């Protein structure tokens, strides 16, 4: 809608007609914030525009395509689907645009995928397979559902009743048990009782990310209800993608505010940071590592809480009632850094692109499944940066990032240690 009633409902692309039609091709979505521009290398933050080069793969191209789709001027094709899906939805474009303007780029991109699914053209075949896995076994890998709790070591006993509920997620349950185990041990060490869901299902991150909103909404309802039944006050995640899904996309799907979930959604780094600052958790062991920290997109620039909004757009494009735009300013940037800096022996060296300017690892939002070469390429670009700063290890806050970095480093023959932050924290306790 250019004028009149409008909302942030991503299931209707026309809600973002104004945003798509006001893209000015400044390419702030692609470049690192010019204030932080590091020079001729590592100068972009959009993986898809950097990899595929044609303007259509940048947000400026996709906004124009979106307008063409709204106006019925664009037919679906393999190339169009590639443009829509060979994108990490990492939010770099959104914060870049919102440095200067009030345009909802990330939501427009999500709405484009949702429209593609509604029109029966999306998602990509690989995504449909993942959706089948989730439907059948309640996890994205298609592994037997009964194996979900296998990560839990015998010596850790979750509480039957506790304020903190740890939502483990598919990755840490099946593929990265070291993350779940480290998280549980950290909670034990901190004297923080935690419980698990009796029957945990996939969070549906992939479903939402590729535009399958109906399936994602169903999972959101089911999962939120399951958590509410436990009476948990805090939902803890060790996966950045899951964190974003619970904190931002569930409320978005259900048209409620994050604050209305009925429980607080926190990532492990937020909890640990609080525990350290309260003195409840102390680092006693030395971890001799020159390491760098990778800002996982879903914990950083994509993680600001959601508030539903609907209203009117009028003169000069102003909206009423007032809309507090999510610009990525209040993402979780500092807690993981504070944690790492407080570990004896750790030398934290920052990457050239950091915080809201970070370059996505390339794994998330359906990219790795449908465009594995692109995902590896993106991780490879990030690992070049790691090499340039001379770090011996990279630390992430998301199993998706960890796996993609580890896999790509191995493929490229790069000698690099790859950790989830839970592992580093545990090593220091």
């Amino acid at each position: 809608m250019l004028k009149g009633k409008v909302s942030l409902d991503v299931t209707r692309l026309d809600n973002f007609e104004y945003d798509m039609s006001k893209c000015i091709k400044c390419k702030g979505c692609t470049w690192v914030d010019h204030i932080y521009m590091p020079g001729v290398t590592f100068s972009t933050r959009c993986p898809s525009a950097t990899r595929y080069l044609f303007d259509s793969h940048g947000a400026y191209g996709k906004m124009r395509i979106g307008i063409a789709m709204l106006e019925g001027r664009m037919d679906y094709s393999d190339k169009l689907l590639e443009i829509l899906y060979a994108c990490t939805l990492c939010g770099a474009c959104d914060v870049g645009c919102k440095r200067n303007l009030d345009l909802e780029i990330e939501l427009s991109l999500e709405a484009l995928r949702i429209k593609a699914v509604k029109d029966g053209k999306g998602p990509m075949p690989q995504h449909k397979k993942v959706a089948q896995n989730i439907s059948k076994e309640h996890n994205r890998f298609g592994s037997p559902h009964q194996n979900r709790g296998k990560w839990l070591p015998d010596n850790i006993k979750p509480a039957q009743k506790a304020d903190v509920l740890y939502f483990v997620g598919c990755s840490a349950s099946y593929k990265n048990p070291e993350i779940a185990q480290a998280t549980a041990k950290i909670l034990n060490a901190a004297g923080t009782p935690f419980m698990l869901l009796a029957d945990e299902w996939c969070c549906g991150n992939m479903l939402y990310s590729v535009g399958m909103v109906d399936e994602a909404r169903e999972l959101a309802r089911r999962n939120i209800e399951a958590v509410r039944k436990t009476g948990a006050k805090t939902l803890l995640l060790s996966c950045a993608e899951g964190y974003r899904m619970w904190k931002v996309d569930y409320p978005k799907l259900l048209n409620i505010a994050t604050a209305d979930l009925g429980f607080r959604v926190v990532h492990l780094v937020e909890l640990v940071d609080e525990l350290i600052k309260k003195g409840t958790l102390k680092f006693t062991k030395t971890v001799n590592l020159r390491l760098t920290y990778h800002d996982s997109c879903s914990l950083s620039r994509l993680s600001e809480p959601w508030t539903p909004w609907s209203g009117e757009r009028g003169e000069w494009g102003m909206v009423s009632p007032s809309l507090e735009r999510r610009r990525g300013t209040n993402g979780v940037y500092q807690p993981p850094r504070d944690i790492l800096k407080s570990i004896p022996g750790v030398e934290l060296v920052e990457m050239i692109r950091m915080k809201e300017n970070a370059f996505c690892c390339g794994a998330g939002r359906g990219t790795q499944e449908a465009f594995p070469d692109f995902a590896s390429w993106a991780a490879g670009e990030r690992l070049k940066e790691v090499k340039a700063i001379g770090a011996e290890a990279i630390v992430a806050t998301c199993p998706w990032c960890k796996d993609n970095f580890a896999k790509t480093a191995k493929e490229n023959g790069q000698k690099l240690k790859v950790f989830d932050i839970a592992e580093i924290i545990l090593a220091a306790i």
Partner: protein
Amino acid sequence: MAISKEAYKGLEAIVGKEYISADPAVCEGYRAGPGGYECGLGYERVMTKIPACVIMPRTTEEVQKIVKTCNKYKVPYVPYSTGWYGPRSHCHVDDELIIDLKRMNDFEIDEKHLYAVVGPGIIYSQLQEEAMNRGMYIIIGGGGAQCSAIANMIGDGWSPLSYRIGLPHRRILGTELVLPDGELVKMGSLATGDDPFWGDGLGPDLRGLLRGFTGHRGFLGIVTRMAIKLLPFQPERLEPAGISPHTTLMLPEKRVKWINFTMPSKDAMREAMFEMAKAEIGGGVTKVPIFWRAIARANSKEEFWELWSKENEETISSFHLLRVLLIAFTSEEQMEYEEQVLNEIIAELGGEARRTRPSDESWFKNADSAGMWLMCGGYVSVDYVIETIEHAIPHGENYAKLKRNYTPPLMPDYGDPGWFQSFELGHQGYSEFLVYWDPDVNSDGVDQFYLETSKENIRKRFYTSLLGPHQPLYLTGPAYGPNYHEWLLKIKNEFDPLFICHPPVPLAHDEFVKRAEWMKPMKDWESPI
């Protein structure tokens, strides 16, 4: 695919399959509008097309081959570095090829001789960071940090910092230009060797042909490589700080400092510019449109309007804000000296220093042009004058008066006379008039105002820089020539006999007036179009 199969195959053979596409989804991404500089206006709607094909060369040789292939198969083409410059840098005719130059991002820097050699894919903020890391700097033009350095150097390329280091003409050194027929011209010292260190070469200086005051927007060929003069800077680092959207460069105050002064009148502002120039102090000085302050203070579009709607004719006409930049190039003592001299000048003129943040968001590395779209969604600068300060000030005042007739659809600015500043230590004065509108209402009046400014310049004898491709050539040419248009077309014809490079520029605005019904009543000049 709308270009012939033979032409496509010929082009594909030059760059490889990965770097050429005629897919509709790819081509749609190269549409000029609906948003962007000058977009949403009639010119964009009437005169632009999506390309039939996009190609991305890597080298000058590939560009030459592409252009020769276009000549062979009569495929019209337009060079495109970032696509920032609105409709005038996009396709204007059916079945056209965009030559996207972003892969041409080679970069070399010669610290000893203070220049960098760049391809069209290099943008200003990249160049500035590389320069500053080595104790040098360049002007990031008002077009913004995201501009291709080459495109901006041959098009515009000024900012408040032009007060000290001048307009870009003088900083274009050895340059490679692929002419519209594919022939390569090497300019400056590149004409006689491989070292691009110097701008002058044998024979006539072609830099005037390359850009004039504001460039030809791609209709006289493609610059594929340019050596750009860098200037020595002070040694302290300008430190980035903050998280988006509140990012800024923290200034080392003993070396770099912005000071805002409230002046009692416009005359006092002008005098301050002259006196600073006489004293040879300052790194920049400018009077910016007052609503820019509201943009800088607002966290959103709605906040901007809340702030701006508190202003009126009286508050605007009585508020005179002069921004002065001091750069201590040689020593901290230079800062002390210049600040003292500046304060004396301002005190004598009745001005007063205001608290100014020790930071820069707008001119050193960022040039925040994207913020111009915050408040309305539509923006274009309808004119630039590069003449004298005495000339620049009435230019803005006249435009402000004229603008009242077109407000709305133009944004109310309560008579603000726009942007003026001193260039080249007072030897030149600059006026730029920026207009804003809501693109989602009828904007015919903006198109008409744009053209009316051209007539106003002729009536009032203002020396506009927006000749050639920006206004009807048959209106401006006879007035400024008397045969400027004839010469320009002769040059075009000589270099581009097939009229294949970015047609119908430089006659595109003539063509627009002819095609747009709402412009026809304004046509009162002789023209074969």
